[in-house]
């Protein structure tokens, strides 16, 4: 039985708490992989260092209702495809400061490869399929982030037969 937790929220999260929640009360978990995405300074260091203020923010918008359902459905599919024991997926929305946490994907499995693959795949999926949009704001001037082809390519590699073979292999 896979334990799935999905949340779209403005509140921050605690990675340690989420990892502990995946393992709590069960002894079949042999591996946990977790990923946290963070708001980084999007300007080059040399430019950012010469700017007087540090009030840059990243604002995340989403499609309430559709987002939560898509995340829940995809987590269910991932649990079956990769054979993992638990998934916790948290995506924040609203205005976030530099250094703020944006997203957490944590996966528990019996063996490491399934946990690595499921976590990696879920991030590629989130980047390209989930209805979230990022806007960078500096000194009151906002600019929507453009989608990147590289993210689409990252998702496509999971559709290759070789990737399917790799995730179906039983790696200790």
């Amino acid at each position, binding site marked *: 039985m896979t334990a799935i937790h999905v949340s779209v929220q403005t509140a921050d999260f605690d990675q340690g708490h989420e990892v502990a929640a995946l393992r709590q009360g069960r002894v079949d978990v042999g591996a946990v992989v977790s990923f946290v995405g963070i708001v980084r300074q999007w300007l080059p260091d040399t430019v950012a260092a010469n700017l007087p203020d540090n009030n840059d923010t990243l604002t995340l918008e989403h499609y309430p209702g*559709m987002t939560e359902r*898509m995340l829940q459905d995809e987590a269910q599919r991932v649990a079956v495809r990769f054979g993992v024991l638990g998934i916790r997926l948290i995506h924040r929305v609203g205005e976030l400061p530099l250094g703020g946490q944006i997203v957490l994907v944590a996966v528990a499995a019996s063996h490491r490869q399934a946990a690595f693959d499921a976590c990696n795949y879920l991030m590629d999926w989130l980047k390209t399929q989930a*209805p*979230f949009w990022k*806007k960078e704001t500096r000194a009151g001037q906002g600019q929507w982030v453009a*989608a990147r082809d590289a993210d689409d390519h990252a998702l496509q590699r999971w559709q290759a037969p070789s990737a399917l073979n790799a995730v179906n292999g039983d790696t200790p």
Partner: protein
Amino acid sequence: MKIHVRYFASVKEQLGAEQWLDANLLGPQAPRTVEQLRQCLIDQSAAHARVLEVGVPLRAALNQAVCDMDTPLAFDASGVCEVAFFPPVTGG
């Protein structure tokens, strides 16, 4: 038969969060697919044309499920169909 049109992100900034179309009032001109709805909206104003025109990266969802532009509109029991237009996603 009402169509609830919703916009997100950069599209919302330019066209507002939502608008309603009464499909009955449109008669034979009523859109039957997401693409026909897009064309119908483009005819509404210069701003709509600029934001929704062909060539601009645009995605759509029908009744809160991501869809292709040629998807037929589908109305629920209360006669409402929700269609959203938005730019390619950038979350994660």
